[in-house]
């Protein structure tokens, strides 16, 4: 487990997580064509762009779950390309959290078990993990679905459970890919409010992929991806 204090070495460019000149193609289709990206600790950055522009690919590369064809990704001073699978898995356990559009919960487990899962994986005893999970579920206003399976709750509730799970191990970076993409606007707003509030509380940086400006409004800064290139919005930061 990596020691993650605010004093830990920073990536080149001063960010917590930085990618430079990423290229990634799927066969003949370029998904990323020279994208660069930096996020500082505790920062909420919206990654915007039209569908198919490479936002998700960028997020996956940043999180070390998709390997770019070229370009460097540094997290807290470590080059992701040099990490083994076990080390990248350990990063996901301790430093990263994920919220996707839908479906990332384990359908066989109850919501409480889902939220406790990351803690169980780092060796937290069951009781303690479940207690912490309960706190997080309450914090996201879904304490009542604790014993439900993901298939038994609404989309909005599911996303809140997913946010709870993503934040339960106090990650330094939360990767959110269209976290409200499958929700109606009312539910979407609430999920975003809770997500951003919780992340700010814990000092978690958020990479927030979205194509909706309503969602991007929760961010400190916006980055636009177009045709596989990321560009900071003029005047932002």
């Amino acid at each position, binding site marked *: 487990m990596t020691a993650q204090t605010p004093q830990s070495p920073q990536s080149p460019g001063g960010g917590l997580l930085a990618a430079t000149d990423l290229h990634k193609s799927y066969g003949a289709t370029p998904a990323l064509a020279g994208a660069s990206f930096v996020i500082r600790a505790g920062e909420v950055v919206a990654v915007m762009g039209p*569908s*198919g522009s490479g936002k998700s690919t960028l997020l996956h590369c940043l999180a070390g779950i*998709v390997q770019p064809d070229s370009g460097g990704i540094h997290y807290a001073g470590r080059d992701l390309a040099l990490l083994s699978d076990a080390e990248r898995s350990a990063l996901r356990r301790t430093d990263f959290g994920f919220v996707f559009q839908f479906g990332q*919960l*384990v*359908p066989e487990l109850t919501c409480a078990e889902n939220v406790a899962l990351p803690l169980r*994986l780092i060796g937290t005893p069951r009781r303690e993990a479940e207690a912490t999970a309960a706190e997080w579920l309450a914090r996201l206003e879904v304490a009542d679905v604790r014993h439900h399976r993901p298939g038994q709750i609404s989309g909005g509730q*599911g996303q809140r459970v997913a946010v709870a799970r993503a934040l339960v191990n106090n990650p330094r970076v939360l990767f959110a890919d269209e976290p409200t993409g499958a929700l109606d606007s009312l539910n979407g707003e609430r999920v975003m409010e809770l997500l951003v509030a919780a992340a700010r509380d814990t000092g978690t940086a958020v990479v927030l992929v979205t194509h909706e400006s309503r969602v991007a409004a929760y961010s400190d800064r916006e980055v636009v991806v177009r045709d596989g290139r990321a560009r900071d919005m003029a005047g932002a930061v």
Partner: protein
Amino acid sequence: MSTLRVWARDLGMGARFALAGGRSGWARTALTAVGVALGVVVLALAASVPSALEARAQRVEAREPVWAMDDSGPGPDTFLTAGGATEYRGEEIGGLVLQPEAGAATTAAPPPGLDAFPGPGEMVVSPALAELLDSADGRLLAERLDHERVGVIGDDGLDGPGDLYYYLGSDALAGEASRATGFGNPTFGEPLTAAMALLVLVICVGLLMPVAVFIGTAARFGGERRDRRLAALRLVGADMAMTRRIAAGESLAGSLLGLLLGVPLFLAARQYLGTLRVADLSAYPGDIVPEAGLILLVLLVVPAAALTVTLFALRGVTVEPLGVVRHAEGRPRRLVWRVVPLLLGLLLLVPLTFRFVDADDATLTQAGVGIVLLLTGATVVLPWLVERLVGALRGGPLSWQLASPGGSSWAVARRPAPSAASPSRWRRPPPSTCSSPGSAPWRPPTPARTRAATRYRSSAWTPRERRAPGPSATWRACRASSPPWGRSGARPPASPTSRPPR
């Protein structure tokens, strides 16, 4: 955490999945359990053969008369015996004529299964013989054995429930009769002959083949759900070793259930076998007791085999946070090695059809090995045949496509995939995986989504892509079999017509 606790946690987590896996997970666990149970029963029965034969041999020995010394004369505990064995419609009927030399005052112990020597003209018969004599089938035999029946022989005096045997009391024996002093003559040799052992072997293999196929099929059942589950675990940070342990825990849970299920099943099978008569062989349920060492082996080996199947299946698979990549499974089955055992088996068996008259040990061995090879061959050729047939049927009902074990991967979801890796069997779960089915949060497809889907189809899955060399097939291909979160909005068509040429 200590290694032991890590293992316990991961295996336990797997077991949790096996038991809480929803309907398909349950089906898989149940199928595994049934398969393991059947395997255990077959092997436990096989492990019982030596003891059953031994018990039988002991009882047969126990009723062999102990002959008196040549020069000894009649005494209060001696009796004369004469063979009464006969044959009726191809069935061996054992029998012994008895005449205690001290008459009713004899001190000789009666044969096992009898309380006393039958008096002159009285007959004691085995239950099976009694049944035969009373039946219409046995009318002619009843004419031959036309004596007063005074009782039935107890179980401890018979070689099995099907034993056709009788004792006849007499007062007219002399001359040819032999003098005996009691019963219990250990004269018989090894009860498990080579022929017997071969028979057991062949039966076992014959029964275990379908069981193995069954377990293999069970292991694949619900595979797409398991893929998603394991990918979900990877996403929250399970590494490959954890993932494998969790998968192992799943199949172990099914196996342990199978062991539990195997016990009552074995008892039932044993009871049933007690009613069965094959040739002149039959066994009491109480005789069918697995040898302790063998049953221990069975109890270890069968779950271990199920575990091996699981881990073996995972060998060709990389579980990535965004999905599961299968490396080799997309390849169509190869016939060549599959027919080898079949041909070898035929090679051994065909000559035997011309000369089987003198069944010596070599012939028996040849027959046994041949049959085992033939059965094995049939088992491994069958999946290939099914795959061909299903292929020839161009789709067909879904159940047919699933019937070929690897079939689901190509029949449903195989399409040109990046590099050599082929995508997971199924694309996407129903939307209900994270929301209640009733309150579908899904927006109708917007123009943007439709466009994304089109692009996905036309770019990601072009045959050209398949040929593209890839330095990191795993990384690249994992998106191809993405779980729900892997791709947003885009859904490639899952039409069976996109099957690649073979």
